């Protein structure tokens, strides 16, 4: 890895993490990664890729079948002080439906030692969520905002958010992202958010975890990842040349006259009549999503670099 990643502090680390569900098989397999502290990580992958499983394992809502999780450098345990440092907002935003909004806040305050009631109340006022309303009578978007308010009010060091923006209108989405960025800048929090909307992620996140079919496909800083890939546009024969280095090709598209390809590394910059450029982050992610078998993760001890991993 590059010098910048050499002595980095991780808020969350997994080693060989895996989870199998009976006969449905592995939801997550052999996942080794680090979420850098004080940063904003985008967790991306198609439905069923293992994103939710990874988040549930990270907070101890699921027990791993293999491997382990470390939060803040310590193995995940049930200690109250560990739990106070992590906030998790699940995709279905579980809240007590018979509580009022105010009772929900009080519950958050009683169960979380560092709860910032003032911040939480200001956020709810700003979103015009009435305190005496029953949670069960809130709209889906309002419930999401309430769940995120609890998570932010907790002043956690690590915020794990599973599809937090899915049912928010554009203004609320912008405000939530702004509040999360503020928690990172002011409180030094670490944020992991999963989303299908790449546009929400490209400007707010700076680190990527890409999952496909339960396996880690790519993991790294945005800048490092894009600098380590190229988009090539060249003649049809370019595809034949690239066939000689299958391990470098993430995705390839060929017509009768033209080849476009997303490749790893800069080795292919000088093929004849070929233009090479660095991909934007969304182009890189799309390339990997189109080829779930490709991986940017070196598998030590299996094959020499650049051989045999992708087809």
């Amino acid at each position, binding site marked *: 890895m590059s010098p910048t990643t050499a002595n980095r502090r991780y808020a969350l680390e997994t080693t060989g993490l895996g989870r199998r569900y009976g006969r449905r098989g592995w939801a997550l397999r052999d996942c080794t990664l680090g979420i850098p502290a004080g940063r*904003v990580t985008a967790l991306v992958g198609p439905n069923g890729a293992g994103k939710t499983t990874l988040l549930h394992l990270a907070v101890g809502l699921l027990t791993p079948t293999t491997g382990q999780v470390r939060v803040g450098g310590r193995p995940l345990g049930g200690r109250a002080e560990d739990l106070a440092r992590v906030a998790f907002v699940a995709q279905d935003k579980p809240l007590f439906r018979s509580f009022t909004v105010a009772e929900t806040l009080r519950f958050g305050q009683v169960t979380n030692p560092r709860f910032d009631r003032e911040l939480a109340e*200001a956020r709810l006022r*700003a*979103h015009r969520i009435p305190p005496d309303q029953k949670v069960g009578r809130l709209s889906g978007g309002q419930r999401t905002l309430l769940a995120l308010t609890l998570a932010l009010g907790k002043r956690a060091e690590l915020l794990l958010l599973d599809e937090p923006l899915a049912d928010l209108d554009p*203004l609320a989405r*912008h*405000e939530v*992202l*702004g*509040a999360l*960025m*503020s928690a*990172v*800048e*002011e409180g030094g929090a670490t944020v992991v958010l999963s989303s299908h909307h790449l*546009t929400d992620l490209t*400007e*707010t*996140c*700076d680190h990527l975890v890409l999952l496909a079919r339960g396996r880690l496909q790519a993991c790294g800083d945005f800048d490092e990842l894009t600098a380590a890939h190229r988009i090539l546009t060249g003649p049809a024969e370019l595809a034949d040349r690239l066939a000689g280095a299958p391990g470098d090709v993430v995705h390839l598209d060929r017509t009768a006259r033209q080849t476009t390809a997303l490749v790893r590394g800069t080795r292919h910059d000088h093929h004849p*009549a070929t*233009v*090479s*450029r*660095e991909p934007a982050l969304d182009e890189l992610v799309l390339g990997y999503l189109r080829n779930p078998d490709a991986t940017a993760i070196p598998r030590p001890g299996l094959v020499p670099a650049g051989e045999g991993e992708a087809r």
Partner: protein
Amino acid sequence: MNHDSTIRLVKRENVIRFQLDRRSGVSPYLQLVHQVRQAIRLGHLRPGDQLPTAREVVEQVAINPNTVHKAYRELERDGLVAARPGVGTFVQASLSARRPAEDPALRVQLADWVAAARRAGLDEDDVRAVFDTVVRHAFAGTSVDRSGGVA
């Protein structure tokens, strides 16, 4: 696009407000740099004025904190602003009244290039496409691949 929301409580009145054009293709950090330079050039920001804090910017524009730090570092490197640790970032210099857009020499060079492009058979759309590509690449910090230019 204006994302200003009514739900923010503003404590200290800022002199400028950043806006992000999400479709411009210009990286967010360069947009921030340009907006500060522009505000200084137009006199909206004067020496001694404080820039919005990083926390204010990330909350208002919803961008990664590193983007703001990178922009402010670049402005500091250029001597336009100075960071006072624990206090904030302040405008230090004013940009000279010279407006590069009105620099006659640059204009003449560009006019010569446009004339050459027309002689080479490019129409207005072709010229704009080449110009936009070159500008976008120049300001994205990446170099234009010469083989990708005009045929």
